[in-house]
């Protein structure tokens, strides 16, 4: 497979995963803000999606949603994610199925629909976000059913899990900083609950820990729980699984490097136990994050032909 095409598929997948996570976080935030939860500050949300820059004037929820979902001038907006996912898919069209291309093409036309954009102000934003999430689910379904399990599928899967890990780590770090890793008052508990909802982990948490919301247990779930698809351990395991499938189509040297990078990240996760110490927790998250970036660098150098 062409190195460029492999990279295109990898990034298509990353942008789609980013979109999915972003939409779910926004949905939870919006619902929480309607619920009167005080930790939701829309200016903070705006700043996060605007390279840390504050808005020129105070913005309400609908304005921030418009900015994150549909603003083409916002580099991190969902519409730009979809645009880039589609551009990457266009460049790899001969290695993805026609159905997958059409699914992304449909998504592109949907998100550019001005009628949909107007509903952010005129209608119910949750309905719009749900519609966009549904289109993401359609994408995952089409990938699962139609994509051939060849080399390209491995890059697609690795891209998906790498992006998911990075998003989970960022969300967890923000949550720890928001609550100082505590659940002392009722609002902290609500905040942790909404955090779990935003990463699709609330139901699973309840099954295992019904009746109590404890930050250290949530931390453990997000880091180590192998049955939770948004956990770091699960993601690294999946990355390793799809990387192993590349062995037969790789140069030995390339495969050894990627295997080493994945193994190192997994070992750091496995052999560190930060306990309830918030600083140690954040430190571990940052170390894992930098090792995931090393995996990306290894892919760039050994598979995608990018040398910088």
């Amino acid at each position: 497979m062409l190195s460029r095409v492999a990279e295109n598929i990898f990034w298509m997948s990353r942008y789609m995963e980013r979109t999915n996570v972003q939409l779910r976080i926004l949905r939870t935030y919006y619902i929480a803000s309607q619920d009167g939860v005080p930790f939701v500050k829309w200016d903070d949300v705006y700043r996060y999606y605007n390279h840390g820059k504050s808005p020129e004037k105070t913005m309400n929820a609908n304005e921030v949603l418009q900015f994150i979902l549909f603003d083409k001038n916002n580099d991190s907006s969902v519409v730009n994610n979809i645009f880039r996912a589609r551009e990457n898919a266009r460049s790899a069209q001969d290695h993805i199925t026609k159905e997958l291309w059409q699914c992304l093409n449909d998504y592109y036309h949907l998100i550019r629909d001005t009628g949909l954009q107007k509903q952010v102000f005129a209608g119910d934003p949750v309905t719009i976000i749900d519609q966009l999430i549904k289109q993401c689910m359609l994408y995952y379904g089409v990938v699962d059913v139609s994509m051939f399990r060849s080399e390209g599928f491995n890059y697609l899967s690795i891209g998906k899990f790498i992006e998911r890990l990075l998003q989970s780590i960022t969300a967890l770090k923000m949550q720890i900083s928001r609550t100082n890793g505590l659940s002392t008052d009722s609002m902290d508990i609500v905040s942790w609950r909404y955090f779990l909802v935003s990463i699709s982990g609330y139901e699973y948490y309840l099954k295992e820990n019904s009746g109590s919301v404890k930050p250290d247990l949530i931390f453990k779930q997000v880091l180590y729980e192998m049955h939770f698809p948004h956990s770091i351990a699960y993601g690294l395991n999946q990355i390793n699984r799809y990387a192993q499938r590349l062995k037969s189509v790789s140069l030995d040297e390339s495969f050894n490097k990627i295997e080493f990078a994945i193994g190192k990240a997994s070992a750091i996760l496995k052999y560190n136990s930060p306990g309830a110490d918030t600083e140690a927790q954040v430190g571990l998250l940052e170390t894992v994050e930098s090792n995931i970036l090393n995996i990306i660098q290894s892919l760039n150098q050994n598979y995608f032909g990018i040398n910088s």
Partner: protein
Amino acid sequence: MENIEYFKQYQTINGVFDEMKCNEDVRKHYDSFMSAFQNINSSEMTLKDELAKKLFLTQGITFTVYSSGEGIEKIFPFDIYPRIIQAAEWDFIERGIKQRLRALNIFLKDVYHQQFIIKDGIIPAALIYSSPNYLREMMNVDVPFDIYTHISGIDLIRDHDGSYYVLEDNLRTPSGVSYMLENRNISYRLFPNLIPENKVRPVSDYPDLLMKNLLGLGNRHTSRPTVVLLTPGIYNSAYFEHTTLARLMGIELVEGRDLVVDNHKVYMRTTRGLKKVDVIYRRVDDEFLDPLIFRPDSMLGVPGIYHAYRKGNVAIVNAMGNGVADDKAIYAYVPDMIKYYLNEEPILKNVPTYRMENVDEREYTLKNLNNMVVKRTNESGGYGMLIGNIASDQELKEFSEEIVKSPRQFIAQPIISLSSAPCYIDGKLQPRRVDLRPFALSGPDGIEIVPGGLTRVALKEGSIVVNSSQGGGSKDTWVVD
């Protein structure tokens, strides 16, 4: 639910040959389709028209116009009413195109080798050397099987008496074949059963024929040649076509940055390292192909590819330097080429062409500019053209001045009326002007032409410009037995 008498309402244009209607009657080869069409009521027809548009958009059968960093998707307009050609007429076209291509191919070999045609005084040397598309770098380069014009699109039009004329030859990177394939796919959906009932000849084997030829070119070096399609990238307006063809042939779609030349051999960068490439179907123009030889600022090409080609280590399709043969000034000499190389009378006629470097012809043209189409010799796509009878006085004046200043840059032709074909527009059948671009494939086994081709249609009422960039569209083309 209203049945419209489509045919009764259909009014042809005076003095224009109509593909369907003759003496208030339906031509025989349109009869079967028109009868079926007549039975479709207006609301059903509107739904079909909408379905066609939707299918094009959702399948991404679009060309993209980029402005301010973002792509604007445009559908190449499609008219649902097919253009129908009877088999006997098609046989005539096929023979004519094959004859023309044989001559043009010999011309290219000759002009880049011994140049007998110049030495014998058939074509002036100055005309060839002044063509911007004549590549001195191709002199004495031997191309595989002596084939230059692997893929050609010959534009045909019909005058008021119905006779076919060649409007221009496209021998470099002719586009539109994916629309031919997609138009047929859409027709299956719009008119179930009508294609088999009308015994329409299939076009779907085009990718197989092309692939067979491409593999044939690579067989000189290896039994399993690696074939790739070189595209300028996603920003090219024909990118959809490139992806379609790569997908249908099962070959890699590469960009210039994916290829690298080492020791005069071409390789592509893959996840397993470098892989040798044997045949390149390129959709990048000559001047961008190798920055070391042609335009140094080209980011679309591959440094060193020219020398790899010259050494015979890679086959490039179409050959470099073909532009000299489809130059609009050289076009006027194609009938002479046919007589000179093949000793045959041309089957397909040329549109009479006045060469502006010839003083008599220039003066005649300037006097009769109102009745002429003036074209720039190095432009295509309907750009840089003057249609005398609809041009303003200012435009006529500007063109006159430019012709006098640089006559080699222009040719003039009498205004050909172009035949009309019925189009379904605003709920009724209306005549619109059409041309026809059949696609011919030349390979080691000879020349093959897929029946039909792309019918382009000037959708604006009264217009005779069929180019997509100038408001043109397309329709499916049926060759019926």
